[in-house]
């Protein structure tokens, strides 16, 4: 059975794919907790239980592993966000979406931030391929927010001339920046404030 290709073009067996997935998953967890640059390949080996030769069979080096982490984290976040935002068509629904994100982040006092946002700020200025992948993921995430805003517009809760792209970008920035502020303060309060303020602005545009 073949499931994926390794960097040298060799087909992967099911077992090989499983090892690769275990390495990427361990790397993603470590990088989420301690950051990309602080995570060494030795730590990834120790955490995944893989051997050095297994790791180098699948990845040419750390850069390639980081790209695989971006892909995995992207899949996880997008799956979560598609579920959370797919049917939202009210401001109240957006507040519930915010509540869930804050609640998840509060469990750790905001210590680790957004898995995808942290990757974006750490890798995008020295790996162009990873940056492009991240740009695509964020465009998709923001597209989900833009779809919600368009549904608000369709039901008359946003004026027809409101700039959906600008509002979706502003809301995403408030969320991402909120994560960073919470991380620094070790307190989710600034994250709650920043998203609330952005949502309040969107609500204030509603025709009375």
């Amino acid at each position, binding site marked *: 059975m073949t499931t994926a290709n390794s960097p040298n073009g060799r087909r992967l067996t099911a077992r090989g794919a499983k090892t690769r997935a275990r390495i990427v998953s361990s790397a993603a967890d470590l990088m989420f907790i301690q950051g990309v640059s602080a995570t060494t390949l030795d730590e990834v080996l120790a955490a995944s239980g893989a051997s050095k030769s297994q790791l180098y069979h699948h990845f040419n080096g750390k850069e390639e592993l980081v790209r695989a982490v971006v892909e995995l984290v992207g899949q996880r976040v997008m799956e979560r966000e598609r579920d959370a935002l797919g049917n939202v068509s009210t401001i109240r629904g957006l507040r519930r979406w915010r509540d869930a994100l804050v609640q998840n982040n509060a469990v750790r006092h905001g210590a680790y931030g957004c898995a995808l*946002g942290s990757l974006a700020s750490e890798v995008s200025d020295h790996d162009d391929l990873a940056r492009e992948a991240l740009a695509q993921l964020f465009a998709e995430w923001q597209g989900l927010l833009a779809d919600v805003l368009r549904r608000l517009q369709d039901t008359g809760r946003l004026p027809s001339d409101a700039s959906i792209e600008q509002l979706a970008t502003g809301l995403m920035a408030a969320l991402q920046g909120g994560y960073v502020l919470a991380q620094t303060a070790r307190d989710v309060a600034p994250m709650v404030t920043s998203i609330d303020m952005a949502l309040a602005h969107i609500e204030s545009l509603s025709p009375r």
Partner: protein
Amino acid sequence: MGKQAGRQGKELMKTHFAEVLARESARLAGITDGAKLSCWQRKLVEELMTPDSPYARALRQTGGGSDRAEFLDRWRALIEDAVRELVHRRAMGASDSASGPPDRAAGVDPHRTAVLVLAALHGGSTLSQIAKNSWPLNAALDLALAPFKAPSGPDSGETSCDPNRSVP
């Protein structure tokens, strides 16, 4: 060796923090109207989009650290003061000319607005960094500062940022 490099990195970061606070303190204190606010935004975006500026360096690394927490808290306080001053000036101006629509800035909470501005410049920088384009950062700041911006069209301040009168 590693420890020493870490200490040097920490000292360097403190220098960037101090530099940003010094510039922001001067620039934010000069904001007296919407046009000057737009000039501040333009300079801020310029700084954040310049990879080696103290601004970009100060924001690059995230995470805890009491130095960073203090830096962000002081920056937030500077923005908060500027927003409070702007709200005050708008209120004084509005009482002079009683006609016209109600001022959207009147109900602004300076503290919460400052938190949003600080979040917008962080989140907007990340989005602009991955897009290699300043548009997301500007969109984020436009939303955060919306109560002080002209209701439609580009702010009149867009063309009148006088470089001779600006602070370094």
